[in-house]
């Protein structure tokens, strides 16, 4: 299925690259705005991740199919328009079937249009590779993004409210035998920045050890 340019790249490698080696958030530092903004709880983070996977796959398919027709100086514009179309679809879908989540995420769903991950994959992968590799790449990158988002959101939600996915995990001080005092700061912008900073530091530590 992969065409001549894509033959040297194996699908498995591409898939795994998105999950860890080139993880968009942890290694490439792409798509920071949604990463920080929607990770106060796991549910919005998961919704955001799924929307990004959908847009990423669709835009990679379209870009890959039209890659031979693109004029170099107009290509970024074409990418953006393609992405904007699919984001509109995702936004309308969420408004219709998940109105609460759509309300909670607010403008961050339309902001997927300017999410650097999607435009980066369109430019770096889909505009150079065949359909199959592009789809695999989109899945790898999308799932890598979603997993990172969920890990970050789980840490923040646990520390801010004592719950994960709205299920109580730690007994909070308000209950009869609770001991856990929620950190309100974790649910605020400060928590987002500091948690992500420490997460990146942890990843740095792991890769440094692995290299040695």
């Amino acid at each position, binding site marked *: 299925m992969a065409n001549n340019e894509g033959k040297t790249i194996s699908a498995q490698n591409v898939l795994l690259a998105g999950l860890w080696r080139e993880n968009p958030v942890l290694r490439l*530092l*792409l798509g*920071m*705005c*949604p990463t*920080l*903004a929607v990770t106060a709880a796991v549910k919005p983070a998961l919704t955001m991740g799924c929307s990004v996977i959908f847009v990423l796959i669709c835009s990679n398919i379209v870009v890959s199919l039209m890659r031979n027709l693109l004029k170099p100086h107009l290509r*970024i*514009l074409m990418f*953006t*328009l393609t992405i*904007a*179309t699919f*984001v*509109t679809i995702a*936004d*309308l879908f969420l408004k219709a079937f998940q109105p609460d989540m759509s309300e909670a995420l*607010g*403008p961050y769903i*339309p*902001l997927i*249009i*300017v*999410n*650097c991950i999607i*435009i980066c994959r369109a430019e770096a992968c889909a505009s150079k590779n065949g359909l199959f590799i592009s789809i695999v790449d989109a899945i790898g990158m999308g799932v890598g993004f979603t997993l990172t988002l969920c890990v970050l959101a789980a840490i923040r939600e646990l520390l801010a409210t004592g719950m994960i996915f709205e299920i109580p995990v730690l007994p909070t001080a308000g209950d009869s035998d609770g001991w856990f005092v929620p950190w309100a*700061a974790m649910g*605020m*912008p*400060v*928590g*987002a*920045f*500091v948690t*992500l*900073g*420490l997460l*990146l*530091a*942890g990843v*740095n*530590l792991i890769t*440094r050890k692995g290299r040695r």
Partner: protein
Amino acid sequence: METLQVLLLAFVSIVIVNNLVFTKFLGICPYLGVSGRLDMAFGMGCAVTFVVTLAGTLTWMINNWVLAILHLEVMKYVCFILVIAGAVQLVEMYLRKFFPSLYDSFGIFLPLITTNCAILGLCLFIDLWSIKSLLETVVLSFGAGIGFTMAICIMAGIRENLELADVPVCLRGAPITLITAGLLTLAFMGFAGMIR
């Protein structure tokens, strides 16, 4: 007099209380990427201020005077991103023709502004807050640019000093920048609740 008060409040609110970078997480990529040196950060801030003022005003006009009348709100996002890309292209052409030296010093940042989430974000927030007057939109857009410039310059100032500090190896680079940003937002949280 009352209009002036509303405008002034809107300006202070978008620059300090609802700063796009600190409270809405918009424009984080350039905020972390370009804030290495103060002069670069200031240049980026100026370019963003110009484009965001233009884009915010234009998208408000298109949204209220064209799309709302034709009931084409579905096309909103596509139109917004087209306007922003067009505005950036316009600024780029203008600078290249009339200020070539400035154009050279901006380099790659100019096209990058298209994908700066602060700009599309502001257009979306203006739509979300359903701002009714054109004047308020202009003030909000300009204020958003000023707020971004302020944030990125503060960050650049801190990072220039950070280079002299002894940071643990695994925290160097992005992690320490993010933690610094976190502490900065903590400081700016003190302004929360001042205005709506």
